[in-house]
């Protein structure tokens, strides 16, 4: 069919394409680099559900609250065992170890202009306990309850705050808990003016603070659009002690895809990228415009064996699993740059953390142990795995090494919350998970790995030991004792013992400790990642 008028189609299509190209050319993309006075960070922030420090407990929100609010005390990012003044200029504990007194700095103000005094501090702590949201346990574990907190936590002067605990805890434990986000100081006057009363009960500004700001930190929260952006601005009312923000604005863009973060960083549309994969970090190593910084994070990854499964409950089987992980290969490849092989439940940097690494890949030894347990030919077992990296890669590698000893591992993939729901219901065989320190004290991890006060199905708390049905009355007592030991040296030794016992007999196959990495443009200065989510100070970063 040769048709001359077909040229009409040809012409029409060309015309359309030409006009499209012209349209595209009519605008040129604007200057790519980010504005001089704005810090732009690409980070996955879809975990934020609330901006209220009494409620927020996610990694992203932790970081934002760490920059936007102040607390009584903070720790030195370079040496977390050192405590530094925050709002409090000095503090002491009574001889019986149950009364803490804090003297505040004078002349402090909130971003709103309201004065900051002991009344605000006491009220903020009381509020956290009264609202009793997820992070409240950090404070309530010291015996602060809804009906007693108003007496136990009080302002005894315009600049003096007193906190009474129910037992004599290790003072470092109490101080470290007060550096956590839940102990942030809020603007009482502002929040009470936004309070909503329902059925005669005031909400203490809870409804309003979910999406707003009432703090005194170097950066104030200007806007939060869920799964899109968080905008922070310099707080001109911040004290010198709190810190003056080096840039006028900090914009955090929600970018989920690592490749996209990398492209933005390479092009200069983002100053910092926080969630890059090992391969993207490798590729950026050659880029002169990009540098990176890394910090050991208080997060540990593990496989756990449900003790409700009779085969997995056998001590030889538990040990065999620990000899079947190819720690070396995983360390060199799957977690390169983003983690370090670690075989203890206390991450490096915490008091008493052990560096011992007794396990390595030894198939023969594992087979012998399995034979001793009565399973010379292996057995079948399932693992609930999150379809996220590097967890997925590590599980697949584990599947292969387990096979060498005859253990058939069936992988049940699922999304994060799916697998978590199953885990909390104790209906798994093996689970691959992670745990991040809630505050910078060893009790935070001991509390969950080495304590199981109630192993029944109706238990009120579900520590990781409970989730794997690991019944450990003796170890629980030891962990409790360590939490109350006031001598630092003795305390460290107690945790060493607990970790040794844990390595031998626990159903946890500890894998690695996370290294948090941030890649940033070379013209940035002052970016340091803290060991906890709330100790990365974006306000200290400057752009040349």
């Amino acid at each position, binding site marked *: 069919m040769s048709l001359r008028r*077909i040229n009409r189609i040809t012409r029409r*299509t060309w015309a359309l394409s030409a006009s499209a190209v012209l349209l595209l050319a009519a605008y040129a*993309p604007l200057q*790519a680099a980010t504005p001089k006075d704005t810090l732009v960070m690409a980070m996955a922030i879809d975990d934020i559900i609330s901006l209220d420090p009494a409620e927020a407990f996610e990694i992203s929100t932790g970081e934002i609250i760490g920059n936007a609010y102040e607390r009584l005390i903070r720790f030195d990012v370079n040496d977390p065992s050192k405590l530094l003044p925050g709002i409090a200029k000095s503090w002491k504990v009574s001889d019986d170890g149950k009364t803490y007194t804090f003297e505040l700095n004078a002349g402090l103000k909130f971003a709103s202009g309201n004065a900051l005094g002991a009344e605000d501090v006491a009220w903020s702590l009381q509020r956290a306990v009264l609202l009793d949201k*997820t992070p409240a346990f950090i404070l309530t574990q010291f015996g602060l309850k809804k009906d007693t907190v108003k007496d136990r936590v009080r302002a005894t002067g315009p600049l003096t705050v007193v906190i009474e605990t129910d037992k004599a805890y290790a003072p470092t434990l109490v101080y470290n808990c007060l550096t956590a986000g839940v102990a942030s100081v809020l603007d009482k006057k502002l929040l009470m003016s936004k309070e909503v009363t329902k059925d005669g009960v005031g909400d203490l500004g809870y409804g309003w603070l979910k999406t707003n700001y009432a703090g005194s930190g170097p950066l104030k929260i200007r806007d939060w659009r869920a799964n899109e952006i968080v905008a922070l601005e310099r707080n001109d009312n911040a004290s010198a002690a709190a810190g003056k923000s080096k840039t006028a604005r900090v914009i955090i863009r929600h*970018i*989920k895809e690592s490749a996209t973060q990398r*492209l933005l960083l390479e092009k200069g549309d983002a100053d910092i990228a926080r969630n890059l994969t090992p391969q993207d970090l490798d590729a950026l190593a050659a880029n002169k415009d990009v540098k990176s910084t890394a910090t050991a994070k208080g997060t540990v990854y593990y496989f756990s064996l449900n003790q409700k499964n009779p085969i997995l409950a056998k001590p030889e089987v538990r040990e065999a699993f620990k000899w079947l992980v190819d720690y070396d290969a995983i360390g060199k490849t799957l977690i390169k740059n983003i983690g370090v092989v670690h075989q203890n439940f206390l991450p490096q940097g915490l008091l008493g953390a052990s560096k011992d690494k007794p396990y390595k890949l030894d198939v023969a030894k594992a087979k012998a142990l399995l034979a001793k347990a009565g399973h010379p030919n292996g057995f079948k077992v399932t693992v609930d795995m999150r379809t996220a990296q590097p967890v997925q890669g590590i599980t697949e590698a584990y599947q292969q090494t387990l096979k060498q000893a005859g253990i058939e591992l069936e992988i049940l993939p699922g999304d994060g919350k799916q697998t978590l729901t*199953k885990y909390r219901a104790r209906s798994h065989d093996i689970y691959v998970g992670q745990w991040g320190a809630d505050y910078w004290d060893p009790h935070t991890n001991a509390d969950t790995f080495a304590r199981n006060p109630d192993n029944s199905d109706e238990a009120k708390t579900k520590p990781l030991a409970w989730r794997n049905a690991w019944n450990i009355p003796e170890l629980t007592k030891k962990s409790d004792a360590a939490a109350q030991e006031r001598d630092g040296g003795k305390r460290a030794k107690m945790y060493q013992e607990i970790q040794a016992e844990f390595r031998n007999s626990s159903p946890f196959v500890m894998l690695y400790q996370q290294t948090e990495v941030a890649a940033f443009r070379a013209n940035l200065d002052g970016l340091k990642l803290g060991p906890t989510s709330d100790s990365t100070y974006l306000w200290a970063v400057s752009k040349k």
Partner: protein
Amino acid sequence: MALSVQRGLFATGRFAVVVALTYLGLLAVTFFIGRVIPVDPALAVAGDRAPEHVLEQVREELGLNLPLPEQFVRYVGRALQGDFGTSVLTTKPVLEDILATFPATLELATVGIIIGAGFGIPLGVWAAVRRGGLVDHAVRVMGLVGYSVPIFWLGLMALVLFYAKLGWVSGPGRIDVAFEYSFDRTTGLMLVDTARYALSSGEWDAFRSALSHLALPGALLGYFSLAYISRMTRSFMLNELAAEYIVAARAKGLSESRIIWRHALRNALVPLVTVVALSYAGLLEGSVLTETVFAWPGLGLYITNSLQNADMNAVLGGTIVVGTVFIALNLFSDALYRVLDPRTRDTR
């Protein structure tokens, strides 16, 4: 009453009943299946660290302890009053969330379908007319590439080439950070909002930035739908060009271009409209992979995120929107059939 008026009322009544039942059916299926999925929504709100009593409190507030049918009735009752519940993840009313995310998807999908249909239909006609020729094969291969290559791969490659290496377009996101807060978002459609701002202030930079950010993801979706639309156009055109009336028209001496455009294509329009409508509706559903790669805060990401966290209010809200889109587009194309092709009119 006149017979035609009676018929009209009956048709409208039937229409209303059926549409209402559709919504109810969609909601019911989504709701009941959603409530049995193995994810605990309280985890999304309170997190994994929450003590058991906090989780129980959350479950109470979400009404999860009531029997399922009662929960459903409560939901429908509130929905009829315009209250679609609160999203557990964003703590805002679901309606507000949807009004924020849907325009992003709408803008992207519209650009995509304009490119897809605007280029796809002529290309498909061309391929059908020059059947077996180079153009036909080129269109086929191009279409297949667009259809069988994973969209995240195309997206990332496009970003690497056009954004990172060549700098022809702006990168991921809807607008440059510098303009993020410089104008009012009233409609949520970037082009519209920045244009209004530009008209009132004379500053066109924000508009240009929005356009530049829209170009690549829009072109990607356009290419995707172009692949499909061109193939289907070719198929429908081949059907028509083989008919006897074409032979007769040629015998009558009509020009080729008239035959192709005013007769063959006209008759192929009915199924073609279906195809374009289906494509558009598919794009409006939001492509979660495109939105992830291009950091585009649209409906696809919203629904997927909510689903992963068992945020059923948000999922149901999103489903209602998607359902409305499909129903509306299908009804619209049904009406369009009757206009375009008398054979489809009901003569009974």
